Each structure stands twice: as structure tokens, then as C-alpha cells.
């Protein structure tokens, strides 16, 4: 038979509720595609098992089952196999080794238990079973179950959400405490607080911590400390006790009051027991009231030592900074411009002096040359001087108008002339003039 044949084979069947009327036949789908029985499908055993498994595992997650243990078997693997049964039915159960480690009582044949887990299918045997994650003796009964259910519910609601938890103030000024004023818890807390940080202000809201008044009084105390104002942190708790004694701290109203508190809450309940719900809701869980007293305040002596160390560091850093600055100053001082501030000027002066000497030298030689030239010029000049000529016996005759008589033609008889000759002059009247060619030019 082919895939295409399959729908046709059953197409004659009456259809339920008309829902499938307009549905055209379609090829067989893989088990993964879609859920729900399509009556026209033919499933393999594996496929139907997978669907059953999916249904079971979806619908029976995290269930609590009450029953009696039988067929208990513990092979070497460390896993525990048994059957849970009541008078009408039975359910195969497996407790893996990892979960078995958390079981704090001995599983025995015939023991009535509450088992919490997920139903799964074991395909090779076509069997379903519950994989148990937690198991409790039914002796604790309804109280225990109610607690577990409340825990599950509040957890789902987010009351244990780590994101909601606030850090404790490092140094509270006012600490609130909700507990019995006469119990061991208040004494343990005060002892630690006064040892670590004597003198911090404490407000104690007296509340019963067991019995019927406990829940309303604890809730009232949490409210009162929030309302009073200025409370930086509060401790809500009591000393250890039986599960019944601690019951108030597993109460939903207390859990909600702790959750709603704007003041951070340290839950400090007992120490021999499982976590209470208020431990889970609180911002911080202290294992004991003593531990709460230790964590609520810092150790003052230690803080003072810390401050002293910080002071030393602060001082050391300042000293360091000053010495670095001093070192820089010294480095600057070492720089030659500061050490010998006149050096540069002196170097310039020296330079200048050198130039000046050069200049002087140059000027001197130039002057000498000049002097030399002047001297020779003077000699030449002297040799050309008319006075020199006069000394050799020549004379110069000036006409009456003062002009030099350069030739006999410049003179006429009767002219009064002045004649310049060596060491003086004389004045004469021209008697006659005679030309070189003997012709009488004029009579003086």
C-alpha cells in the first residue's frame, strides 16, 4: 500500500461531528507533525508510542502521587526501581541515582509514600512510568504535602525570585527584629550584635513564634517595622524546633508579608531543618539567629582596622604624590637653563665679542689700506702742485682781470700784472710783449 492509497481506503467511514467534512484527504503525516488522532492515519507502533509519550509527558509533569511501595529493586547502577500501588492500580516508578541521594529515609516494601515526578514512557517495553524527583513518607501526610504544594505555588508566582532579593545594608543604623522577647533567638541575636557592633539601635517587635497567635503577630511585626520608618533591615525568626514548631514560618501570610516588606528581611529560623518558606522568600537566609546577628552588622573593630588601613594608603599616596612632584621639580632644577641661567647670554656675548674682534680687525686693515692709498695719492698730488713748479723757478702771471696769462698774447703793454713765484709775488707793468718769432708784440 502506498501513502496515496491510505486515505482512500477509509474514505467511506462516517465522519464524526462534521468537522472533517471539507477536509480533503491528505497524505500520512509524520508523527512529529501535529497531534491528535486522525482516524484516517495508520500509525506505526513507534509513532503511536511517540504520541502517547508526548501526551503523557505533557500532561503529567510534576505530579504528586500517593501510593505504597512494592517490587522494590536496587541494582548496582544505583538507580531504584519500584511500583507504586494502591488497591486498584499500580504505577511503575524509577528513582534515578541522583535523586535517590536526596532521599533522607529508607524506602521499604509496603511503605506509604508521596512521590513527586514526571510520567514518561519507556518505548522498548511499551510501558509508562513515573520518574520520581522527590519522595516523602506519607506519615507526614497532609501537612507536608500542603507545604510542598504551597512552596511550588509561591515559587511559580515568583516569591523566591533571586531578582527580588535585596542586598543587606552594610551598616544599618536601626535594626528591626520580629521574634519572641523571651526566646533563645533574641538572646543569640543581641549577643552577636553587641559583640560586633555595640550600640546600634534595635527595635524588637515581640511576637509569638509558635502557636495560633504566631502567624498574625509575625505578620503584624513585619508591617509595624515597615511602618515605623528608618529601619534599615529586619530579622524575622526563632530558634530551632520541630516542623510543627516552625510552622508559622511556612505560612503563606508570613511569606507574603516578608515578600512585601520594603525593609530587607533576614530570615533566621532554626537550624536542624529543611528550609522554611520564609527562608526562601527572605532577602537573606541565616541558618540560625546567631548567624543572623553576625550578618546583620559588620564587625566594628574590623571596620576601624579597615579605615586605618585606608588612612595609611591615603597618606602613603599623598606622600608618593608629593615626592613625585618634588622629583619633577628637582629634574627641572637640574636643567642647565635654570642651573646656569646666564650661560646662554654669555654664550651670545662671547659670540658677539668674537664678531666684534673680527670687525675691529677688518676695520683696521681697511683703514691701513686706505691710509696707504691716501699717502701715495698725496705724493702724486704734491708732485703736481703748482707751488712745486714755482720752486723750480717757474712763475705764474695773472692778468689784471685775475685770469692766468697762459701766453704772451694774453698780455698787452701797460697791463698791470701780478706774478706769482716761489715764496711770493710781485706786481709789474708790461713794458712790451714779444712773440716767440721775434715780432714785437707790445711795449710794457
Amino acid at each position, binding site marked *: 500500500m502506498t501513502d496515496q492509497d491510505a486515505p482512500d481506503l477509509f474514505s467511506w467511514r462516517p465522519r464524526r461531528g462534521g468537522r472533517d467534512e471539507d477536509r480533503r484527504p491528505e497524505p500520512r503525516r509524520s508523527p512529529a507533525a501535529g497531534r491528535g488522532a486522525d482516524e484516517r492515519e495508520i500509525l506505526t507502533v513507534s509513532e503511536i508510542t511517540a504520541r502517547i509519550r508526548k501526551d503523557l509527558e505533557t500532561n503529567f509533569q510534576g505530579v504528586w502521587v500517593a501510593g505504597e511501595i512494592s517490587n522494590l529493586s536496587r541494582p548496582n547502577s544505583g538507580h531504584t526501581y519500584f511500583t507504586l500501588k494502591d488497591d486498584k492500580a499500580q504505577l511503575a516508578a524509577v528513582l534515578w541515582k541522583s535523586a535517590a541521594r536526596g532521599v533522607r529515609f529508607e524506602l521499604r516494601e509496603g511503605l506509604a509514600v508521596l512521590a513527586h515526578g514526571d510520567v514518561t514512557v519507556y518505548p522498548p517495553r511499551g510501558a509508562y512510568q513515573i520518574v520520581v524527583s522527590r519522595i516523602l513518607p506519607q506519615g507526614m501526610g497532609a501537612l507536608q504535602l500542603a507545604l510542598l504544594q504551597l512552596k511550588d505555588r509561591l515559587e511559580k508566582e515568583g516569591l523566591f525570585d533571586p531578582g527580588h532579593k535585596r542586598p543587606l545594608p552594610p551598616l544599618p543604623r536601626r535594626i528591626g527584629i520580629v521574634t519572641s522577647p523571651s526566646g*533563645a533567638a533574641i538572646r543569640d541575636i543581641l549577643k552577636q550584635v553587641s559583640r560586633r557592633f555595640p550600640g546600634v539601635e*534595635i*527595635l524588637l517587635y515581640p511576637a509569638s513564634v509558635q502557636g495560633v497567635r504566631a502567624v498574625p503577630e509575625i505578620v503584624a511585626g513585619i508591617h*509595624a517595622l515597615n*511602618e515605623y520608618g528608618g529601619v534599615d533591615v529586619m530579622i524575622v525568626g526563632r530558634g530551632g524546633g520541630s516542623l510543627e514548631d516552625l510552622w508559622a514560618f511556612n505560612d503563606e501570610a508570613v511569606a507574603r508579608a516578608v515578600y512585601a516588606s520594603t525593609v530587607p528581611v533576614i530570615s533566621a529560623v532554626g537550624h536542624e*531543618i529543611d528550609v522554611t518558606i520564609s527562608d526562601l522568600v527572605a532577602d537573606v537566609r541565616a541558618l540560625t539567629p546567631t548567624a543572623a546577628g553576625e550578618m546583620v552588622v559588620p564587625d566594628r573593630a574590623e571596620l576601624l582596622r579597615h579605615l586605618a588601613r585606608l588612612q595609611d594608603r*591615603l597618606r602613603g*599616596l599623598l606622600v608618593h604624590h608629593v615626592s613625585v612632584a618634588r622629583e619633577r621639580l628637582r629634574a627641572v632644577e637640574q636643567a642647565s637653563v635654570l642651573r646656569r641661567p646666564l650661560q646662554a647670554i654669555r654664550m651670545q656675548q662671547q659670540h658677539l665679542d668674537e664678531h666684534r674682534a673680527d670687525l675691529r680687525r677688518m676695520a683696521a686693515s681697511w683703514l691701513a689700506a686706505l691710509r696707504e692709498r691716501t699717502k701715495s695719492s698725496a705724493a702724486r698730488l704734491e708732485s703736481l702742485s703748482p707751488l712745486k713748479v714755482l720752486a723750480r723757478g717757474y712763475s705764474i702771471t695773472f692778468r689784471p682781470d685775475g685770469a692766468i696769462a697762459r701766453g704772451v698774447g694774453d698780455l698787452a703793454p701797460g697791463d698791470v700784472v701780478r706774478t706769482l713765484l716761489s715764496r711770493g709775488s710781485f706786481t709789474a707793468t708790461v713794458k712790451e710783449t714779444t712773440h716767440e718769432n721775434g715780432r714785437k708784440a707790445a711795449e710794457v
Partner: protein
Amino acid sequence: MEEKQPKFEEALSELENIIAELEGGELSLDDSLERYERGIKALNACRRILGEAEKKIQLLLRTPDGELKTQPFEAEEIMREPEREKEGDEDVPF
């Protein structure tokens, strides 16, 4: 009635920031001196806060008309008492 003083953690973290700045080594000498002075102030504030010892332990009670009031709580008495309140020891089986 809530006086607003610097909180211890604020003063402490200022002190620590100042030390970190000084350790950074980027500050001028003037700034270093200024930080040092502020650091000493913060340090003194921390010490002053740590020194505030009021030693008060009070009971917080609600009066019948709904008012909150405090009254002194004599802690010495219960602190001396060696006997613990009767509280069960029995373990629970899970």
C-alpha cells in the same frame, strides 16, 4: 526625626574612590592635595558614624488605638539567663 547625615557606605565609597583616583596617578599635585583633604574628611565621617553609640534596645508595640510606640527593653535580663527556651530538638525525617 530622620536626620540626614552622610551614610557610612557613602562616605566609605567616597574614600575608596579617592584612593583609586590617587592610585591612578593622573592628578596634579594640587588635585592630589585636594583629594587627600576630602579623603580625610570622608575618613573622619566614617569614624564618627562608627562612633555613634546609642545602645538603645527598644520594644516596638502597637497600642489598642493602632499607634506605634516604643518602650525600653531590658536586655540584660535575658542576656544573663543561660537557660534556653524549650524548643524541640527532634529531627524531621526528610
